[in-house]
């Protein structure tokens, strides 16, 4: 049964090929069948493989399936092989399941779009690349999947290519992630030259054997890989592309930019955790990046008026939590949060899709209102998702996963009280912006009439994901609340646990209590400002400092402006300046030369008989002299 592993990425890939080649000629039903069916099949395979893995674990808790040899040059071997262990099992299960729900949803959501087959082709290719990334047994295959998802992200962001703004957003995403990818490939090169292999398991063994803790090579490699992860996962300083990526269709935002692709960075760091363990500085850097991104994105989310952009900044912030977990050594906590985040973020995006569709493509939340009566299913599922995001105590998955991370920030040997407190501030911010969003969209007076109501294909995924957002957290609860740790135990087959520091004044329950307090505070503030006395919001916005802060946070802490000044403008200026350099003159010169030759030859054809006779005579003379004298 485990041998079916290769089918998991194969199904979506084949389906994508078929849709690319034959897509425009197929009927809509066939396209939907292919597009959704392949992902469902992939999910089935994933379930089967997982069942086999869990029931009879293979030796070493890992299963490797090598398909063929990619290259074998100068002693450097690379195979196309898939590696299944606890991490990749959990992640592929989540990815395929969520992806199949989102594909089913988009079968209805995109049904009126004339690029229907193109959409499914790209989405399937994306899932295939993501699964390749997750299952890769060597870093080069992982990089192949990495680039594949980057490509699909570009294609899907600019899906409605007729509007140049969408193409610009796609390009921005691609270029920014490219910057990270370059760091990553340098890191891969470093690893390959120093350790001679890029097979992940061998790499980990060799690294721990060859490099001591604090080795500069390990530090360099880890920092470079971190660069790649930061780019793909939209963390500081490369987070500017994700809000603009919301130009793509909502299912894309749900799948790529919330649940799966942006977590590839988290996966990379989790996979190469040995390297990070060997370079504590790099691990601290991960935690710093995580916490900084968390806070920054939280403030930015507070000021956005576009529904999808709020969710985008929320994604950046939540992945910051995952990075924080990685940074303090709580590897399995990060994967746990990934799982719950996939559920509720996908849910939120799909719900946002329903709302936007109903509001006739209106994205501005302040133009919506009072939708809880009109779109009941959307309202309740969105509410559940939002509560999970903010971390409603005891009943939502987000509470447990975030609680675990926050506790680890305090309790782990690499954590610190500062990190812990800032993470709790993040909870406050999360609750504020989430409930701001919910209150403004669903409560209050209805401003626009509802256009389209969703069909069953869109509501059922919402319901399923809502259920998961509630129960998904029960696989791992704190000691005092049931002490279940199925999830972390399972992951400990592949990832080490964090080192506990001696207990300080705060216990785990105390931490959870503070988290709950932060949640309630955020909820209260949002309620106060947006339901009760809405003039507070306006007053704050008008107040000069408040206004300035609002603008600053709205513009993503000025990072777009900064990058524009530092990078974009000089390059564009130089490209413009270099437009006609001497290399260009070679080609222009060639064109000019043929033009001149044309004019010269044209003048020899003037229609005069004597001219032609002279030509003949001249030619005869030349020939004769050539024969004679040469």
């Amino acid at each position: 049964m485990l041998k079916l592993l290769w089918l998991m990425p194969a199904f979506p890939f084949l389906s994508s090929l078929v849709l690319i080649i034959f897509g425009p000629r197929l009927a809509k039903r066939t396209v939907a069948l292919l597009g959704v069916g392949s992902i469902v099949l992939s999910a089935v395979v994933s379930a089967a493989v997982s069942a086999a893995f869990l029931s009879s674990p293979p030796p070493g808790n890992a299963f490797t399936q090598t398909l063929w040899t990619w290259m074998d040059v100068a002693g450097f071997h690379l195979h196309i092989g898939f590696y299944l262990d606890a991490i990749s099992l959990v992640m592929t299960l989540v990815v395929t399941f969520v992806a199949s729900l989102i594909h089913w949803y988009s079968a209805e959501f995109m049904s009126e779009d004339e690029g229907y087959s193109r959409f499914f082709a790209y989405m399937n290719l994306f899932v295939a690349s993501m699964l390749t990334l997750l299952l890769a047994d060597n870093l080069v295959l992982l990089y192949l999947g990495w680039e594949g998802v980057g490509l699909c992200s570009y294609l899907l962001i600019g899906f409605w290519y007729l509007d140049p703004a969408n193409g610009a957003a796609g390009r921005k995403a691609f270029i920014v992630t490219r910057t990270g990818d370059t760091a990553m490939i340098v890191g891969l090169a470093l690893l390959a030259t120093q350790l001679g292999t890029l097979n992940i398991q061998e790499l980990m063994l060799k690294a721990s054997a060859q490099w001591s803790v604090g080795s500069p090579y390990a530090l360099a490699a880890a920092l470079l890989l971190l660069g790649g992860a930061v780019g793909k996962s939209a963390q500081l300083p490369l987070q500017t592309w994700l809000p603009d990526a919301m130009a793509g269709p909502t299912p894309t935002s749900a799948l790529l930019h919330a649940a799966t692709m942006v977590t590839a960075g988290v996966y990379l760091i989790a996979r190469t955790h040995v390297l990070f363990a060997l370079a504590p500085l790099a691990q601290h850097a991960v935690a710093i990046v995580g916490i900084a991104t968390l806070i920054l994105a939280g403030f930015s989310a507070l000021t956005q008026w576009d529904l999808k952009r709020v969710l985008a900044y929320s994604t950046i912030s939540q992945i910051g939590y995952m990075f924080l977990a990685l940074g303090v050594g709580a590897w399995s906590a990060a994967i746990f949060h990934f799982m719950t985040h996939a559920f509720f973020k996908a849910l939120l995006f799909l719900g946002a899709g329903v709302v936007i569709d109903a509001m006739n493509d209106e994205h501005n939340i302040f133009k919506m209102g009072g939708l809880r009566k009109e779109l009941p299913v959307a309202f309740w599922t969105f509410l559940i998702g939002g509560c999970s995001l903010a971390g409603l105590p005891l009943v939502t998955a987000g509470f447990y996963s975030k609680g675990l991370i926050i506790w680890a920030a305090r309790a782990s040997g690499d954590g610190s009280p500062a990190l812990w407190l800032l993470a709790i501030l993040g909870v406050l911010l999360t609750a504020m912006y989430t409930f701001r969003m919910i209150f403004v969209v669903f409560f209050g007076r209805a401003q626009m009439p509802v256009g389209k109501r969703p069909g069953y294909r869109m509501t059922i995924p919402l319901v399923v994901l809502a259920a998961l957002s509630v129960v998904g957290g029960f696989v791992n609860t704190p000691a005092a609340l049931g002490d279940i740790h199925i999830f972390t135990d399972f992951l400990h087959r592949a990832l080490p646990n964090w080192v506990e520091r001696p207990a300080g004044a705060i216990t785990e329950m105390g931490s959870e209590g503070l988290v709950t307090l932060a949640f309630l505070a955020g909820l209260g503030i949002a309620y106060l400002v947006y339901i009760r006395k809405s003039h507070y919001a306006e007053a704050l916005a008008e107040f000069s400092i408040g206004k300035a802060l609002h603008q600053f946070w709205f513009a993503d802490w000025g990072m777009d402006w900064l990058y524009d000044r530092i990078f974009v403008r000089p390059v564009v200026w130089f490209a413009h300046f270099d437009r006609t350099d001497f290399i260009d003159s070679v080609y222009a010169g060639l064109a000019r030369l043929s033009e001149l030759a044309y004019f010269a030859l044209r003048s020899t054809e003037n229609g005069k008989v004597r001219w032609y006779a002279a030509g003949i005579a001249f030619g005869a003379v030349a020939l004769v002299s050539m024969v004679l004298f040469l």
Partner: protein
Amino acid sequence: MILFALGTIGLLVRRDLIFILMSIEVMLNAAGLAFVAAGAHWGQPDGQVMLIFILATAAAEVSIGLALVLRLHRQYKSLDVDAASEMRG
């Protein structure tokens, strides 16, 4: 040979079509002279045979050429060869 050269000069210089035709005759004549001289040198009749052929060719060419002269004259009212240069690029 000198005759041939003179004929060529005449062909290139004169603009009147009649003169051009006459120069062509001179050139043909010169060629025939060369043939006959060569035939006489080797003592074979082949040179004269070539002359006969050249003569026949000259006759044919003259008749067509003169018909074309008449045509040109009718169309352009002059015998200027440069006037008939409409096939230019």
